[in-house]
């Protein structure tokens, strides 16, 4: 699994490529935590999941954990280009109640 994390303004944008599961999530979690710790102005978490080929509850746990961190800052959670299967997994986990499914990161950045 490969990922790229960028901070633009108050948004942390994480682009994921590959499978996010029990084995790959610790590295992603550490990188997200570090980025949030060093960018205390970040409020919104934007996950570009267009090339995310798999996610299970281990991966969702990492995302939810980081969301809780920004929730205290009044932040929001966005998923960019989630496939129908990805949306189904996210909905089953109840993530649709705390996030928005959007078509591009630009869409989120333009709101700021």
């Amino acid at each position, binding site marked *: 699994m490969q990922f790229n994390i960028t901070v633009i303004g108050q948004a942390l944008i994480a682009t994921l490529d590959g499978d996010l*599961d*029990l084995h790959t999530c610790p590295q992603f979690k550490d990188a997200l935590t570090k980025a949030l710790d060093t960018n205390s102005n970040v409020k919104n978490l934007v996950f570009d999941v267009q090339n995310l080929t798999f996610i299970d*509850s*281990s991966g969702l746990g990492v995302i939810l954990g980081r969301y809780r961190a920004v929730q205290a800052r009044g932040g929001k959670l966005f998923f960019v280009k989630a496939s129908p299967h990805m949306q189904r997994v996210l909905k089953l986990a109840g993530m649709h109640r705390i996030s928005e499914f959007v078509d591009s990161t630009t869409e989120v950045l333009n709101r700021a």
Partner: protein
Amino acid sequence: MKNWIELVFPGTSINVSFARAVVAHFAAQLDITLDELEDIKVAVSEAVSNCVVHGYREKEGNVVIRASYEESRLEIIVEDFGHGIPDIEVAQETGYTTLPEERMGLGLTFMREYMDELHIYSEVEVGTKVVMVKQIPARQAG
């Protein structure tokens, strides 16, 4: 036609993706949709992750997967020989987890949602066996 496979591998996180890929390849011998394959991959991933995280934790041990199909019935058994589950009813509650910092407590919920049947057998300090069944309906060609 009946067919089956048996996999034995160490219960470590690096084998989670291997396990779901192998079972998905096996299931692909059936007339199966991509959505059904994704369902199976999530269910197997959750079951094996539970073996690693909850079954063995700091212990080492093997995970055994037996997958079989006959006509439209696909059965997947995932077994560990670790700590076991003290209270299966409580463990099946959505959101229940013994590791709240990292886990969402959705593993069994996902298995139940993505498969047609889920049966759990567990004994403390003996191990846990999860039996999952998915019906793959026959489809018309074309």
